[in-house]
């Protein structure tokens, strides 16, 4: 059974604010370390990666962030132009049609159009070849948050159901085939071990199964506090704080901070158990980094933790 690192097309989604982009770039490092050439595609997001790698913000042009890791972050208009030119071939025709004032205005708000061309671009890169050789070993799609991400993935089916002819319908059918190919494509849901992100994750997994049929590989739980105290220590700590009687002096605040730590972790454990019980999917716990701001070094450590967890789980299968 093919594992995560055998995939050619990876989609990462999850609730807003859970760290999808961080997990996507960590995953890119994990692939790159195996000698794979990775394209990390963001979909018109406010770019966070350029800054992290000491480069200008990633935009419509593909840029190399680190050895074997490339990224692109096109606007729908850029993706549309690239896509239409590929199909129409002549830029004069493109100008006359797609840059027609009324058409351009309309296409901007046309439902599904931005999603279709963005997905189309990702699809094209998965296939891209130069001199008979694949350009990318894997395309990682840092997809939009749950609701919008779901809409993005539905577009190929919606269009292929709605239209029987035309280039758009043919493209949509090919994209659908890629999305539902379990040997090449895997979707991962990034989440936090908190109530709302977990609710969304459970709901999203069910909708993906019933409406898209894409393979859901891993649930990636981000920001898990590393455990410091074992059960005996936790009990003793609670007693100590109790007998000390105050959180307001030096020792009291030290004890209270310890209790705070293991209570937050216990809360995370409850939500992790709920994920496991409801979904029964491989669950990767990614540690919280006690750092001022995310750095390249931090990403490499996340990539390590992620790789170890995935390798252990896949070896057990």
């Amino acid at each position, binding site marked *: 059974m093919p594992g995560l690192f055998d995939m050619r097309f990876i989609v990462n989604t999850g*609730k*807003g*604010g859970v760290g999808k982009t961080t997990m996507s770039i960590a995953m890119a490092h994990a692939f790159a370390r195996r000698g794979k050439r990775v394209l990390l595609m963001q979909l018109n*997001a*406010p770019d*966070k990666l350029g800054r992290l790698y000491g480069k200008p913000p990633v935009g419509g042009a593909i840029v190399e962030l680190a050895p074997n890791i490339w990224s692109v972050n096109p606007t729908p208009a850029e993706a549309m132009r690239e896509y239409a030119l590929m*199909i*129409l071939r002549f830029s004069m025709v493109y100008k*006359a*049609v797609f840059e*027609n004032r*009324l*058409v351009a205005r309309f296409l*901007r*708000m*046309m*439902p*599904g159009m931005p999603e279709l061309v963005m997905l189309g671009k990702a699809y094209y890169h998965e296939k891209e070849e130069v001199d008979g050789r694949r350009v990318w070993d894997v395309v990682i799609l840092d997809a939009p*948050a749950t609701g*919008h991400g779901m*809409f993005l993935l539905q577009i190929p089916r*919606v269009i292929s*159901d*709605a*239209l*029987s*002819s*035309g*280039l*758009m*319908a043919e493209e949509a059918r090919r994209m659908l085939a890629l999305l539902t190919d379990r040997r090449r494509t895997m979707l991962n849901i990034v989440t936090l071990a908190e*109530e709302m*992100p977990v*609710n969304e994750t459970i709901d999203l997994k069910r909708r993906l199964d019933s409406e898209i049929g894409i393979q859901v590989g891993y649930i990636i739980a981000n920001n898990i506090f590393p455990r*410091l*105290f074992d059960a005996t*220590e936790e009990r*003793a*700590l609670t*007693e*100590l704080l109790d*007998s*000390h009687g105050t959180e*307001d002096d*030096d*020792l009291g*605040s*030290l004890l209270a*901070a*310890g*209790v*705070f*730590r293991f*209570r*937050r972790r216990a*809360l995370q454990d409850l939500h992790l158990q709920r994920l496991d019980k409801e979904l029964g999917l491989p669950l990767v716990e990614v540690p919280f980094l*006690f*750092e*001022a701001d*995310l750095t390249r070094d931090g990403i490499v450590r996340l990539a390590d933790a992620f790789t170890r967890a995935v390798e252990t789980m896949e070896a057990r299968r």
Partner: protein
Amino acid sequence: MTTLSELIATRRVLVCVGSGGVGKTTTSAIIGLHAALRGRRVLVMTIDPARRLANSLGIEGLDHEIQQIDLSAYDDLGREPGGALWATMLDMKSAFDSIVDRHIKDPAERKAIDSNRFYRFFSTSLAGAQEMSATDRLLDVIDSGQFDLVVLDTPPTTNALDFLDAPSRFAEALDSETIRWFIEAGGRATRGGKLLNVGTGMVVRTLGKFTGTEFFTELGDFLYHLNSVLTGFNERSRLTRSLLSDASSAFVIVTSPDPSTAREAAWFRKRLAEFNVRLGALVVNRVRRPLAHEGLLAAPVNVITDRLLAISGADLIGRPLLTRIAGHLLTNATQFNELARRDAATIDDLRREIGADVHVATVPMYAADIHSLSGLERVRRDLFDLARLDDEDLQRLARTA
């Protein structure tokens, strides 16, 4: 500077915006709750509250209906007379349906729209439709005159200000000229005898190659039926914009001290200015506070162990265990202090960027979920700088909950 408390006492509309996962819905609920306890009649329009958030306010769940929240639990906690709280959920799924319902009364016309494939597939996701529907409802509840204050929670989009932008983009994209063009391109007008000019014909043929011709027929049909709805939109959209840029409305940016989220908050600030709306306050949730006493952090482990031994009573906990605990306590406190320093620095940067005229309110990170009545009350007191809950308050809340 207008404080958050003053905003709540004086404004008619407060819009909470921010990135996903920062606690926007909870903050909106607490702002509404506080205003109601201060004697105002408040409606909170929310997106998708956690069930436990709804439950902690004493309601089973929330839907399109406006529900009143029972505030009797707060009778002994400084509730002022005259206030009342209502809540409703913005149903994003049937957003477009409700707009169509409002503008199209003819059943035959409605049926034609329902059977249009375009409408069926895209009515829930037409760019801007959800925002349009939310602002439509906002106008309705303001017009009803039932509420002194409406608190609006906004959808967590990549671009959280789509909310302001989308209705006008929608109106612009579908102005009458564009619609006429597409209706003609779809073939309706030619049936009426008018022929497309040569240029348009070429454009339509080329686009048709791309999209398939049936796309155009369906689309033209869709727009033809929707023409009257869209004309109504423009007027509503203009009214919403002027309501939101009025001095009686203010925006509240909700954020967390995570550096990348804070950078987004600073960016929202710029965008709000471009839209000519007023930023009232900034709320930073989940702020980690440093240890009140940092002295012990530099102490060797055995000093801490001795102090622990002194309080551990009748030697129930042995020295080896206490030594391990002392070591972990130091690691933990050092890690959290590092984060607390980071949070403080991020908030300082935010204050500088936001400007001295905007109130920045902070809420600490708690050890437990805040989804209970006492949890909400704790946040309310921290957010509005009220005295912390004491044991007596907690007992009162426990009695009434």
